C-alpha cells in the first residue's frame, strides 16, 4: 500500500517537475527527460512489473495532459519499463553505470520513435537534424540529471524495501 502511494506521488511529482522546472532549466530549449529516468530506474530496481506500470502511468498522464493522441507515450514508456525490467537481477542496482547505459539507450529509442511516428509520417525527412538537435542533446542532459536523480530514487526504493518487508523485498520481488 505504502509502495503504491509512494509510486503515485513520485509519478505525479515527476510530471509536474517535467512541465515546470525542467522548462526553466532547459539548455538551448532542450529539456531533460525525467520520466525516462523514473521509468528505467524502477524497472531496474524493482523488476518488470514495476517498470511497466510506472512507465504506463507516466506516459498516460503526459498524454492526457498534453498530447492529442492518448496512449502513444504510454505505449512507449510501457515498453521502456518492461525492457529495463529485464535487467533486474542481472545487475546490482547500486552501480550507476547500468542505469546510465539503460537510460541513454531508452531515451534515444524514445526520441527515434517520437520522430518516426510524429515527424517522419508528416514528411519531415531530415532525420540527422533531429538526431543532432534534439535526440542526442536530450539524452546527454538526461544522463547528467541521472547522476542526481538516480541516487534519490535509489534511496527511496531502499527505504521502501526496508519498511515493506524487513529488507527482503528486493530479493523476493
Amino acid at each position, binding site marked *: 500500500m505504502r509502495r503504491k502511494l509512494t509510486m503515485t506521488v513520485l509519478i505525479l511529482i515527476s510530471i509536474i517537475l517535467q*512541465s515546470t522546472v525542467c522548462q526553466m532549466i532547459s539548455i538551448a530549449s532542450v529539456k531533460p527527460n525525467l520520466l525516462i529516468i523514473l521509468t528505467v530506474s524502477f524497472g531496474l530496481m524493482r523488476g518488470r512489473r514495476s517498470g511497466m506500470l510506472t512507465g504506463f502511468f507516466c506516459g498516460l498522464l503526459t498524454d*492526457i495532459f*498534453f*498530447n492529442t493522441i*492518448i496512449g*502513444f507515450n504510454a505505449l512507449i514508456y510501457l515498453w521502456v519499463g518492461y525492457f529495463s525490467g529485464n535487467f533486474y537481477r542481472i545487475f546490482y542496482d547500486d552501480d550507476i553505470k547500468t542505469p546510465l547505459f539503460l537510460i541513454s539507450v531508452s531515451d534515444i529509442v524514445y526520441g527515434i520513435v517520437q520522430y518516426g511516428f510524429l*515527424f517522419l509520417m*508528416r514528411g519531415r525527412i531530415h532525420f540527422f537534424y533531429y538526431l543532432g538537435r534534439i535526440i542526442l542533446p536530450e539524452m546527454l542532459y538526461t544522463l547528467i540529471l541521472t547522476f542526481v536523480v538516480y541516487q534519490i530514487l535509489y534511496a527511496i526504493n531502499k527505504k521502501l524495501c526496508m519498511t515493506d518487508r524487513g529488507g527482503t523485498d528486493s530479493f523476493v520481488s
Partner: protein
Amino acid sequence: MKKKTNDTLKNKSILIGLSVLCTGLIAVSFLENDAVSPLRQASGFVITPIQKGINGFGSWLSGLTDNFEDAVSLRKENEDLQAKVDTLTEENTQLVQDKEELTRLRELLSLDEQYDDYEKVGARVIAKESGNWFQLFTIDKGTSDGIQKDCNVISGGGLVGIVTEVGPNWATVRSIIDDNSNVSAMVSTTSDQCIIAGDLRLIDEGSLNLVKLTDSDNKVHVGDKVVTSYISEKFLPGILIGYISELNNDSNNLTKSGYITPVVDFRHLQEVLVILQRKEYVPSDSVSDNSGSSGTTGKAEASKESQAETPAQTETSTDSTDAQE
C-alpha cells in the same frame, strides 16, 4: 522455479494487455477526440494548481535576482525611455490625426469596427509540453474566465497560437511555431494569401515557414507584414504574425515560399492575452456563398487557396486541421 515462470507469464500478459489498451486508446483519440476530454478535465483539475504554485515560486526567484540589477543601467535605461517617450508622443499626435481621418473614411465606407477591439483576458503561462518535440503550453485561465476552444492567443501585439483544450481553470495552447501548426495568412500590403507553417527546425533561427504565397504581380517584398487571413477558419483576421525575412520562387513558378520572423518572442513567453471572441465556424459551402456576395475577388482568392492547400497537403492536413481546431 515454477513460481518464476508463472511470474514471467503474468508479466507478459500484463505487457500485452496494456499494449492493447494503449493501441485502443490511440485509435479512440484518432477517431473521436471528444471521447477523451473528460479525462483531461479531471487531470487538469488536480495538476494545474500545483503547476501554478511551482511556477509562481520560479518567477519569484527570478524576480529576486532582477532586484540586484545595477542602478546605473536603470538610470541609463530611464534616459533612453524618456527619449523614446518624446518621439512616441510626437508620433502619437500624428497617429491621432490619422485615426480621425480613418474613422471618417470608415464611416464613409460604412464598415463596422468589428475587428478593432476584441474582448481579451490576460493569462500566465504555467507549464510547457513535457518533451522537446512540440510547442504546447498551459495557461492558468479556463472556461471560468470565458476561454473556449479555438480562442486566439496573442502577446506583444502578435499571434501566439490557438487554444486546443480547455478546462475550468486551465487551457492548452498550441503555438504557431509548433511543427503541426498551419495558419492561413495574408500579406497585409497586397492581401495575397499564404500559409504560415511552423517547423521545429526553424525554431532556433526564430523563424517560420511561409508557403504557397500567390503573388502573381511580384509585389510582395521582404519586410512586408504578414497578418492572419480573413478566410481562415479559426483565426480572427488581421492579427499580426510577423515580417517576411526571405522569399523565393517555388519550382512550379506559380507560388512563392520563404520565411517570416514572428513578432512574438516565443522563448520568453510569460504572459499572454486570450481573445475571447472566436471566429465563427461556417461550413465551407456557405463560406463561398458569403464571399460571393462580398465580392468576386474574395471568392476567387478563397477558392484558389483551398485548391492550393488540398493536393500538396494531404499528408499534413489531418494534423493541420487538428492544430487549428
